[in-house]
């Protein structure tokens, strides 16, 4: 099972990375989202994979999943969401400013004062 | 002598299996029916019912095992039965909007599916509207 889980994480990470290497903002954002899914799965699993051991304290059992990675992943999900949101809207803004959604800056685009 | 619990177990098992069967059939319909409008029928009714059955099974099961009436499933069912038609409705609207082709044996030609005169200029023409 562990091998399967790891394969899944790896496949998602690879897919995400492939997208982030694309030349348009939207696939990049989607890729980063996918990558963050992979990372969350990874981080989640660092405490081991436990079935039927939700870390809600009950009597008569001490079979619990490691709650710490879960808490970390929760934080990571929230942060990831915030970051995705920002990058998505930034992509829209890029389109608004440039008229397209190409990620690469073309030559001669030296930074200069833009005061609008 | 078949005990109460055995009967109940049978009932639960019935609902679970029925749920599974309905869910399967709904998805099967989705997979193999001829056009979109037909495919819409499976999930919107059958799958919903499938899950509904499962929920009933669960309701009985947890009511028995926890010795209190488990009614949360009811809530899930309500949500499901309220929302499923809306999804179906919206999807159907989409299909009509996209004028998806229908199975040739379909009777009736709603005006929604009439081929209108396409505006050739309307094709992917971004209109830029600067914000104030």
């Amino acid at each position, binding site marked *: 099972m562990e091998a399967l889980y790891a394969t899944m994480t790896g496949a998602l990470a690879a*897919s995400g990375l*492939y997208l982030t290497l694309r030349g348009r903002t*939207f696939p990049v954002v989607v890729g980063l989202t996918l990558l963050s899914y992979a990372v969350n*799965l990874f981080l989640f699993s660092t405490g081991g*994979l436990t079935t039927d051991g939700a870390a809600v304290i009950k009597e008569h059992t001490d079979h619990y999943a490691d709650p710490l990675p879960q808490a970390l992943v929760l934080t990571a*999900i929230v942060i990831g969401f915030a970051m995705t949101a920002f990058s998505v809207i930034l992509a829209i803004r890029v389109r608004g400013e440039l008229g397209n959604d190409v990620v690469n800056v073309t030559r001669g685009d030296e930074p200069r004062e833009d005061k609008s | 002598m078949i005990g109460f619990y055995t009967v109940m177990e049978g009932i639960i098992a019935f609902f679970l299996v029925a749920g599974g069967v309905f869910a399967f059939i709904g998805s099967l319909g989705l997979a193999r029916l001829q056009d979109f409008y037909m495919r819409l029928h499976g999930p919107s009714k059958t799958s919903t019912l499938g899950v509904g059955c499962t929920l009933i099974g669960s309701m009985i099961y947890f009511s028995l095992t926890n010795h209190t009436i488990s009614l949360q499933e009811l809530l899930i069912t309500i949500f499901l039965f309220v929302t499923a038609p809306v999804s179906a409705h919206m999807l159907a609207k989409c299909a009509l909007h996209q004028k998806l082709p229908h199975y040739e044996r379909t009777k009736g030609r709603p005006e929604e599916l009439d081929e209108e005169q396409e505006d050739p200029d309307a094709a992917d023409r971004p209109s830029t509207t600067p914000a104030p």
Partner: protein
Amino acid sequence: MSLLFIVLLPLLGSLVPLLGSNDRRNLCALITAILPAVALALVATNIGDVLSGNVQHYSIPWIPALGLDFALRLDGLSLMFALLILGIGLLIILYTRFYLAAEDSMPRFYAYLMLFLTAMLGIVMADNLLLLWIFWELTSLSSFLLIGFWHTQSDARRGARVSLTVTAMGGLALLAGLLLLGQMVGSYDMQTVLDSRDLIQQDERYVPVVLLILLGAFTKSAQFPFQFWLPQAMAAPTPVSAFLHSATMVKAGVFLLARLHPALAGSEIWLYLVGLTGLVTMIYGAYFALIKYDIKAILAYSTISHLGMITMLFGLDSRMATVAGLFHIINHALFKASLFMVAGIVDHECGTRDIRKLKGLRRYMPMTTVLATLGGASMAGVPLMNGYLSKEMMLTETLETGLLGGLFWLVPVLATLGSLISAAYALRFVRNIFFEGSPGTLEVTPHEPPLLMRAPVLLMITLCVVIGLLPAITVTSLLHAAADAALAEPVPEFHLAIWHGFNLPLLMSAIALGGGVVLYLLRKPLFDFQRQFTSLNTLSIYEVTVQGIVRAAQWSLDTLENGSLQRYMLWLVIAVLCLAGGSLVMTPSLQGNLPQQPLDALLIAGAAITILAGLATASLHRRRLISLLMLSVVGLMVSLVFARFSAPDLALTQLAVEVVTMILLMLALFFLPQRTPKESSGLRVVRDVLLSAAFGGIVASLNYAILTQPIDSISQFFLEHSVPGGGGHNVVNVILVDFRGFDTLGEITVLGIAGIGIFKLLNRLRLFMPSSDFEGRPWSPDSHPMILAIVSQTLLPLALLVSIFIFLRGHNAPGGGFIAGLVTSVALILMYIARGVDWAQQRLAFQFQPIAVAGVGIAALTGLGSWFFGYPFLTSAFGHFYIPLIGDVELATAMLFDLGVYFTVIGATLMILANLGKLTTPHRPSKQKEQS
């Protein structure tokens, strides 16, 4: 203490001129002169002491870590230079008063000059190698400002930059050399270094040290092949040339040779490098001085030549040569500064520096003519002038040297040749300007400059004559003291006198003078010869080189940083593959001690769907909507995975976030192109697939390895203390709001900032709104389907109820503020979707930003509350309270914290989604009205 003031007063002096105004020029000059004058007086008070053989020290610690003390010394060498610097400096101040035009800013000029003066004094008085370097670089900088004083002229700008570049290069080499030297000795203290000659010369680093230090000295003193900056620096105002480029700054290089002479000199490499460089420079400079037309250029090349001579003298392996070198420093400073001032006067009066136009000026400026003639005579080495004395000594020493072994005769011959050319150009300088012909071509009628402008020249020429006539009583003791400092061994006995009897040097002098006259008379063929060469000089090579470097740099950066995010990402991936992958390769085994858990069909199916959906998201990325649907499947599967492996909170969160993300991406898709055109080449795709696969492989391997490693985690603590310490049964929630509440505080801060940042992004956004979908179909006229609206409205109260339920139970069961917040937001967003922005906005009583911020604020204030009970930030408290009729109720501060989370989520999410949605609304023509 007086040493400190000697250096410090001119530094203060650099501020003083700024007090004066450009209109009151006399006053400005006067107040500028006060402080250096005082400094000179201070030096003077020390003369007796120093001449009697004492070395004065002054030191305050500055940077012990660096071995750098602010340490000054005044020995003979310093004294000699300090007198020159301050003395000539004061004369320059006077001269400048009359030289600068009314539109030139006198305060600025004086400020730069004083800064330079300080730096120069610092060099000669530094008692610490690093301190010396500091002042050394300061001279480069201040000379940059002085040369560039007339910055509207391109010559001046270029000259300033060239000289800065060359001298800074030398300065950096010098730093390296001095650092090495200090490390060899173990101290940067000057005396220690000077006393460590054997230690230094036996060290294997001796050669690099000598090379580096000489590089510094040679660039500063314009030795071949670094001489080219000096003529270029003539674009400076003439007082600068007189001061920096004859008397002082260029002498810093030879000063350094003298200063470090006791420690470094005496080796073969020193002899050859210094001696030969000096010799070559001497001839080279003299030749070009002869053929130049610009009178300042003539003087500049002459300076190069004379500096070459001094350098050679410091290179030669006899003690007397050093004495001669020191003596010539004084002499050269005096006559060359005078001649520069004369050149300035001529330029000032005639408006040109072209020797071909300047003729017969003696009729208009007889007094200046006299001074110039005497100065020229000194430069030529005519007897009775001071220049003669040191040249004679030089010629004597060339006869003694072991330089060049069997070709030893070459040295005196070349030295004589140099003197010969020197005499020729001196003659040309004086005769062509003042005596030959009449100045018919000039546009102005020249006349004598003001008396006070001539006074400095007069004073210095007088000194030239006096020294020339009475060397023994004027300079011997000073020279002795200076030589004492510059020599490791005792100073040899020497007698400065005009007449040493008939000897070889006398003959050589005579040949030089006589030959000089002959050469001058026969100069025409030489000029014709020179004209064959195009004006390819070192300077243009320098310019071309610098421009080439700039262009090459720009090209290489434009190529490397081509603005391609894809490439930058690629580098990131490569870094990961190399660093992490490399380490992973080294890891002995991925398989840990833990056994694998069994597989079942459910898991296989789940994993297969997830993997397929992930790959589909990537491979179908050009059809964006489909890609998004696939992403959605991944999201759903991930939350099922969380549920499968005992993480209900995660499953809930992931589900809720998934929906919000979906809405967000759908919104974005509207504003972005609907499809991605095919752009990547096949090769690029293959490359990216391979890289991604490698990365995925690394992640998978790591994950597998981690999963099979046993872990000795701190988590047991949380499981044990969750109920007794945190008051909650849901350990994950207790970790979030209590054990690691600080993380959560940061996390909601991130969320709040994201909302605010997005609001900023949406501000003044220019929108691209497609008027039809990607297949060219116009949008449906039905903007708000009624059935959806009705159902959403029913769902809203239920969703609120559920969110409150989820919120309240969070501490003890899966749930909590974050999920509850998301549920509330999604329900509200559904209202926006179903009914439109206008409708929803009218009914929503609150603004989003304050809600989000207040949420973070509530959480933070909850944390702050514990301060008042003497506990650290975020210390939680909880208690069980019995309320009649209701029963036992648990209240925890953590719930208040969670409430903050709840509000933040609602505020931020709505800020993001609703604001984005709001954008278009005013701009969309509603087709609904047309149709209904």
